[in-house]
């Protein structure tokens, strides 16, 4: 097995995961990226998508809605606004997320951004099978 890195996932309310992983797939704003040991230090914002971490005891996947990830040579810390383990995601929850985005766009948010977010959410819906 290749080298490992420390993976931390924190939401504003609590720490969701803190494991040693071999690789972490991050849905970055400009495209997905995979962080492994020795990755160049990077800070990227997240788009709504699925965050996967390959740990020794199996893969963990989380649905994240936004936030940012800080990658250093030693580890990855993801600060997600909302993060939900994939197993707990339901169609109703996704509907609620879409409704949030639509509401935010209606208030006067950037329409392009809102549409992109909606598209991201649709892709996420397809990926999680709801």
């Amino acid at each position, binding site marked *: 097995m290749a080298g490992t890195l420390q993976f931390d996932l924190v939401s504003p309310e609590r720490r969701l995961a803190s494991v040693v992983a071999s690789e972490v797939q991050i849905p970055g704003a400009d495209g997905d990226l995979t962080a492994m040991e020795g990755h160049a230090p990077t800070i990227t914002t997240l788009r709504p998508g699925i965050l996967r971490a390959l740990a020794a005891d199996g893969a963990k996947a989380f649905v994240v809605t936004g936030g*940012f990830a*800080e990658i250093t040579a030693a580890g990855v810390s993801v*600060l997600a606004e909302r993060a939900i383990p994939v197993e707990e995601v339901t169609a109703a929850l996704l509907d609620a997320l879409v409704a949030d985005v639509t509401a935010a766009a209606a208030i006067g948010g950037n329409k392009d951004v809102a549409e992109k977010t909606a598209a991201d959410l649709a892709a996420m819906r397809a990926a999680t099978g709801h």
Partner: protein
Amino acid sequence: MPSLKDLKNKIASVKNTRKITKAMQMVSAAKLRRAQDAAEAARPYAERMTAVMGGLAASVGQSASAPRLLAGTGSDKVQLLVVMTSERGLCGGFNSTIVRLARAKANELIASGKTVKILTVGKKGREQLRRDFAANMVGHVDLSEVKRVGYANAQAIAQDVLGRFEAGEFDVATIFYNRFQSVISQIPTELQVIPAKFEGGAANALYDYEPSEEAILADLLPRGVATQIFTALLENGASEQGARMSAMDNATRNAGDMITKYTTIYNRSRQAAITKELIEIISGAEAL
């Protein structure tokens, strides 16, 4: 001199009060533990957030293209004070200390010719501030229905504040809350959130930024405001329970003292009444 019956009633009533304050103290103790856990759990996020934003702000902050949330509007004419207090009373000086700090700040700003706007979170602060600053109140956030403060509540407040900022309603925003130190000590604190201030954030040139530094900063700053508000709400929650706990502890002790005092008076008057009756009987018998 109150009658024996009055005293008895008084003692019974103080005993009931003591039961209530004792129960409230225990409820607060349990809630305090939960509030402290929540504050503890939120710390890693807030710390990381501040660290990253501090680094970004240090490298982008000086440039002319810096976002307004960081650089400010270039003026400090209109000040927004966000005063966070509790929804319920019976927590000692908890609300008064925050309000006192906010009031001092507001008076100072008004004296120096600035416009003050006040947004209150929590009913108690609004009641106290309305007396002096009724004309300055611009809004109120009601959290009385909220059992457990979540990030969503903080986000809603942040959106309200940011919306007002976008609309040009104010230049500088400061939040007031009680920082939790211990059960007996909570420190009223003021914290400027807009424009954002970071202490000692060293520019971190080591990172690659994706997308650009500016874009990340623009995305992060509103989140930073929400995070700061969330932290303040949690600290406030823990402080409120701590303050209530010690206030109720004091009340319980006072009630205990009062019961002892009244019981002594009660016993003494009972004794006096008995003695008086005896004297009457004896002197009556002697007269025969």
